[in-house]
């Protein structure tokens, strides 16, 4: 019947039918183009049929994803989370390690089904791939004292005293707050302690780190939503709406079941070490055990610094006394400049300032800075010591045929050096104490070790007490040693009698 009808149709009707057909075809093609991924190859079905989810990650970003040092296995917060998701979905998981800059193109060329790699959800990335709901909020958070009831959100921070870590986004945020007093710390743990001591109203810092501190020591809580939005999402190819729904549902369930917070606690909770004994003697012992290995470094840097200082000091003292006016002037300039600038500035200058020209590690940069500084003080002491030797001594030596070098070497310096033992010993003790300044450029000596221990345990009083005690033991020993040397090498008839 149809055929007959067709046969009888007019030419015009035939044309209309063909146009309609063409339109339907075009619409269908457009439909295919638009809905192609969903219609042609659904990722979720694919994954379910093979029973394995392939995941791309850049395993160089602890604690989110990294290769374990000993086992070489990929571990981390993201890894545990995606394993839990797969458990929830009844899937196995296999990881592919990809450099972060190639991770999106790897996804789109179907090397794996999704990405989990601490990837912040940004509008640019959302153009290229589909993101799950955020699974981690890495923004800045506000911490306040546990009993604080006035600060509930960012707006409440106006005119408050706010602590932050030097050079962080948290500090930048804090500085934008109207009338707020911002206090920056080297270590965020110090800001939390300052708040506990009542000197700050709030601390702005990375949420995971703040969380870690609060879990470890209490006395503070997080308030309000995170300030900057840095949310991590799982990435999938565009169009994998069903896979996204499955993953989002799994995430919701993990949160509800408490599995998410278990993983969070595992990677961002208080570090397991050191276990702090509850009893006071046990705590002291634990502190001392932690500090003891740093004592040799304090001794070593003091010795190296002071050796350099003695060399600089003798050279500068001889230059100052010598006949050459230019050299003498240089030596005086050295003393004046170095003695007029704080040691901590000199350490920064040599480590960071000159660090771009000469690469010195923190040990030698520190030793050099202290050496130069103490050299200037020692130069003055040596100069006074040398000038205290009666002129007749060198005349007598010269008249015996010695040259100037021999006079200095055999007659002047041996006497001058022995006369300056007490003041030099004082400088040495001061140098030992000032070696603590090198902790600011990261050398792991006694003071640094104390700060490290604190950053984990938050035991302020006992830690600083023990750091101080260890310094005191060393300085008392040095003072004793200096008295022994002094009496042993004392020149009869010169200097003070003991």
């Amino acid at each position: 019947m149809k055929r007959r009808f067709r046969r009888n149709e007019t030419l015009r009707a035939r044309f209309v039918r063909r146009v309609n057909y063409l339109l339907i075809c075009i619409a269908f093609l457009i439909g295919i183009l638009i809905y192609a991924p969903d219609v042609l190859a659904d990722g979720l079905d694919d994954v379910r049929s093979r029973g394995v989810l392939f995941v791309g990650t850049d395993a160089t970003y602890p604690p989110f994803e990294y290769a374990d040092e000993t086992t070489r296995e990929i571990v981390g917060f993201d890894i545990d989370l995606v394993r839990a998701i797969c458990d929830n979905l009844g899937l196995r998981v296999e990881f592919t390690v990809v450099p972060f800059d190639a991770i999106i193109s790897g996804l789109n060329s179907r090397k794996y089904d999704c990405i989990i790699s601490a990837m912040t959800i940004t509008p640019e990335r959302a153009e290229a791939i589909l993101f799950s709901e955020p699974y981690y909020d890495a923004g800045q958070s506000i911490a306040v004292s546990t009993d604080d009831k006035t600060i509930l959100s960012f707006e409440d921070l106006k005119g408050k005293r706010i602590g932050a870590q030097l050079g962080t986004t948290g500090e930048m945020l804090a500085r934008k707050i109207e009338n707020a007093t911002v206090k920056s710390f080297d270590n965020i743990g110090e800001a939390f302690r300052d708040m506990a001591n009542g000197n700050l109203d709030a601390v702005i810092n990375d949420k995971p780190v703040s969380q870690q501190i609060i879990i470890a020591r209490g006395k503070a809580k997080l308030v309000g939503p995170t300030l900057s939005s840095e949310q991590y999402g799982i990435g999938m190819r565009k169009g994998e709406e069903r896979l996204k729904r499955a993953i989002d549902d799994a995430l919701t369930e993990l949160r509800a079941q408490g599995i998410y917070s278990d993983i969070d606690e595992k990677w961002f909770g208080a570090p397991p070490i050191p276990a702090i004994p509850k009893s006071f003697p046990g705590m002291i012992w634990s502190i001392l055990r932690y500090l003891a290995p740093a004592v040799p470094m304090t001794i070593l840097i003091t010795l190296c610094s002071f050796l350099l200082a003695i060399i600089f000091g003798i050279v500068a003292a001889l230059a100052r006394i010598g006949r050459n006016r230019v050299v003498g002037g240089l030596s005086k300039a050295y003393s004046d400049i170095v003695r007029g600038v704080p040691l901590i500035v000199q350490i920064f200058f040599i480590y960071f300032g000159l660090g771009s020209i000469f690469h010195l590690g923190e040990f030698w940069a520190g030793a050099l800075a202290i050496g130069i500084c103490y050299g200037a003080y020692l130069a003055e002491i040596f100069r006074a010591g040398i000038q205290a030797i009666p002129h007749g001594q060198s005349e007598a030596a010269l008249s015996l045929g010695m040259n100037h070098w021999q006079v200095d070497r055999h007659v002047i310096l041996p006497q001058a050096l022995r006369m300056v033992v007490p003041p030099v010993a004082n400088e040495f003790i001061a140098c030992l104490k000032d070696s603590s300044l090198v902790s600011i450029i990261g050398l792991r000596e006694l003071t640094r070790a104390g700060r490290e221990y604190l950053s984990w345990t938050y035991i302020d009083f006992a830690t600083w007490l023990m750091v101080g005690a260890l310094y005191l033991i060393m300085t008392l020993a040095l003072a004793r040693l200096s008295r022994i040397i002094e009496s042993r090498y004392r020149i009869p008839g010169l200097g003070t009698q003991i």
Partner: protein
Amino acid sequence: MTPIVQARSLVKKFDHIVAVDDVSVEIEKGEVIVIIGPSGSGKSTFLRCLNALEKIDSGQIIIDKEILDTDAKKIHDIRLEVGMVFQQFDLFMHLSVLENLMLAQRVVRKRSRQNAEQIAREYLGRVGLADKADSFPAHLSGGQKQRAAIARALCMNPKIMLFDEPTSALDPEMIGEVLDVMKNLARGGMTMVVVTHEIGFAREVADRIIFFEAGKIVESGPTDEILSSAKHPRTMEFLSKVLK
């Protein structure tokens, strides 16, 4: 025979003060010269010029045929020939007496430790300090210190010995022991130039006396002649005061 010391027209100025003013002296080998004169007359400065402890402004010094000029090597060589003893002894405070005597022998003469010690002990014996070898200068009396200082200079085997007021810083009872050592040295034939106020010593051992005043030699001559019949009134006046 050429004189062992020849000083010709020496001039030494300190800023604008002329300490030694055109002084010429010749000293024969084995001669003992005593220089006298009031304080600040330039006699010590003259003595110090002879071993280049003071740099002369003009003139010439010839010691044992060597011209003393500003060349450091030459100065060094000449100082080896010229021993000096100071008013304040100037023993090295940080060394024992024995070490004081050995130091320059070791570092300048490059003698072995054994050899230097042997020589040091010999001279210590000659000045009567054999038992003080291990003492420190601070534990010696003034007279002992000065005898040790003389021994220290002698260890270097100098051809000439200069003494710059060697007894002026001593207590009276210690002057004798030092002068005795010096007399023995003179009798042994050492060429000596002694700045002193000890006229008795001069009378006993000096061949010649030179009288200094205001940087110039006022009078010089054989000891007896100067002591008994000085010609210049300033010399007579000075001697009358010190001999009183």
